[in-house]
């Protein structure tokens, strides 16, 4: 009976002050959205980073540290110190424990974007995110020697379309003076955005990489010795070396053994790394960044809760008359205290539900735009246990905070002198 009365009174009181309460609710909703948003972003950025490459069991390159190999093959940062021989690549290919190999040859660039020479296995087997394959937005994967496929970011920033001809530059760097002008490439396809470094590269065949370097010596084209696309037809462009290879293994349980064998390969010094392991190592190095975001989340929590207290205490100041009337009509101090608690918790719950709604709508609306414009991959996913804990902490905090005005009102209303009568 008492609970029902408290509920009816609380609702009536809420309705009476609906404008002020709507504003309070809005403030709370914004705080909770910010709190959840930062926490969500923190986990999503980590997820997006650690899934830059997935499905690839090993990356094999010339001997170097695992971070270096990962940086130049996957992130296109830095350069390879050495290459691996084509014969070594062939002998890896003959190993039937390896399901597939993607050869990678680096060294040239297109207006500051890496040129990656590879084969059709890159399109077929490369995975990123949660096992997502590459997709073409337009056109098809390269087939001819002078075909090129552009990453989404390159195509967007340079406004290229399928069918255009582009001239690749020799070596890295944004402004290169030695261009492969005799051997222009035709854009045959444009990849869909992935939110990974794949977007910032252009893809050609290994044959194309060899063909455009015919007649080049010491980084300079010798006039008359380079070949034209017509002359390239029917020629064999098997390379001498490649930069690295991505490897998929049939039985993943063998990964460490195969890694060990490749590291001890007698033919030439090789390094095989586990991309997932190297990525988590790299993320640990960048742990400061995650800690900074965690710190921000902490501050947001504290600020939101202090804001909550301030807002609720202000509300209480406005209710002196209402309390006096309630007491005069015979409401017990306990009933009045429970009114406060009900109100605060209800407000907090409403704010949480609203914040969840806003968050979900925001993520689903903004994620395609973020991916297309900033290459950030943020997808809608169920909340993690930590996020649920954070969310439930809001009504719990509201309950605790409500105890302060509830207790002081209870004391004040007793002091009004009706205390004894009401208790009877």
């Amino acid at each position, binding site marked *: 009976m008492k609970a029902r009365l408290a509920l009816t009174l609380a609702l009536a009181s809420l309705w009476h002050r609906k404008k002020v309460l709507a504003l309070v609710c809005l403030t709370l909703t914004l705080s909770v959205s910010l709190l959840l948003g930062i926490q969500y972003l923190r986990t999503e950025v980590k997820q997006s980073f*650690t899934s830059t490459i997935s499905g690839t*069991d090993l990356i094999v390159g010339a*001997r170097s540290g695992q971070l270096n190999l990962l940086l130049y093959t996957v992130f296109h940062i830095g350069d390879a110190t050495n290459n691996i021989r084509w014969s070594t690549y062939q002998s890896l290919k003959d190993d039937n424990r390896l399901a597939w190999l993607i050869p990678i040859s680096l060294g040239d660039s297109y207006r500051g974007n890496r040129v990656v020479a590879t084969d059709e296995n890159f399109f077929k087997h490369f995975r990123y995110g949660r096992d997502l394959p590459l997709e073409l937005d337009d056109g098809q994967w390269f087939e001819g020697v002078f075909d090129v496929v552009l990453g989404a970011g390159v195509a967007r920033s340079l406004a290229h379309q399928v069918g255009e001809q582009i001239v690749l530059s020799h070596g890295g760097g944004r402004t290169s003076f030695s261009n492969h002008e005799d051997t222009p490439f035709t854009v045959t396809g444009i990849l869909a955005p992935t939110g990974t470094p794949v977007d910032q590269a252009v893809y050609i065949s290994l044959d194309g990489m060899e063909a455009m370097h015919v007649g080049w010596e010491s980084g300079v084209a010798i006039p008359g010795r380079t070949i034209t696309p017509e002359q390239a037809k029917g020629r064999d462009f098997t390379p001498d070396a490649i930069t690295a290879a991505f490897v998929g293994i049939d039985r993943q*349980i063998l*990964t460490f*053994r195969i890694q060990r064998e490749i590291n001890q390969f007698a033919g*030439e010094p090789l390094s095989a790394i586990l991309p*997932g*392991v190297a990525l988590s190592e790299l993320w*640990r190095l960048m742990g400061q960044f995650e800690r900074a975001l965690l710190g921000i989340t902490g501050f947001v929590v504290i600020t939101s809760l202090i804001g909550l207290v301030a807002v609720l205490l202000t509300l209480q100041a406005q209710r002196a008359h209402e309390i006096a009337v309630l007491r005069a009509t015979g409401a017990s101090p306990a009933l009045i205290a429970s009114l406060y608690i009900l109100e605060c918790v209800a407000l907090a719950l409403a704010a949480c539900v609203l914040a969840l709604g806003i968050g979900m709508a925001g993520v689903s609306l903004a994620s395609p735009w973020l991916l297309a414009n900033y290459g950030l991959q943020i997808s809608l996913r169920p909340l993690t246990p930590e996020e649920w804990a954070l969310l439930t902490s809001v009504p719990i905090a509201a309950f605790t905070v409500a105890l302060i005005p509830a207790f002081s009102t209870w004391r004040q209303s007793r002091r009004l002198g009706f205390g004894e009568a009401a208790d009877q």
Partner: protein
Amino acid sequence: MTPSKVTRALLSATVLTAGSAFASNNPGAHQHGHAELQLAIDGNQVDLIFTSPAYNLLGFEHRARSDEQKALVNQVTNWLGQTPLTNTREGSCTVMNAVVHHQAGGDDHGHNHGHDHDHPDESSHSDFEVTQTLSCPDLKPSEALSTPITIRFPEIENLNVEWIWSGGQGSDRLGQGETRVRPGAQ
């Protein structure tokens, strides 16, 4: 340069060239206080490789000389051969197969196939390498796995744990006394 110095220089040059001719055989890194545990998880089976400098496990790296040292080597080798080096929370893993390689000497017995390599001309460093195949009936890789290594060998200041399971690859670094890794947390 005196003739003897020339000879010495030539000799060392020869040694250097001989070394670089087999660049794929660089000596492996060897860092005291540091060890590596690699876990490959497939269904209920775990294949693991544990490598550590002998110093972390024994407190010395030379061949066991005294009886005490020999006993210690045997004790450690037996422990490494019989104890699952990773386990579920319930401790359900059993060792199906284990191989312990080391160069510390001592007598080998028991079911672990301790190999007594004798490489007198190699460097004074020596390593332990343990491979185990475990069967863990109710293994859920998304839950935490524990390892007794950091407790049993407090000389290991950091243990680099790498893992592969159906959910992907990852790694973590355990400090002294830390025993839990969570492949599923990534």
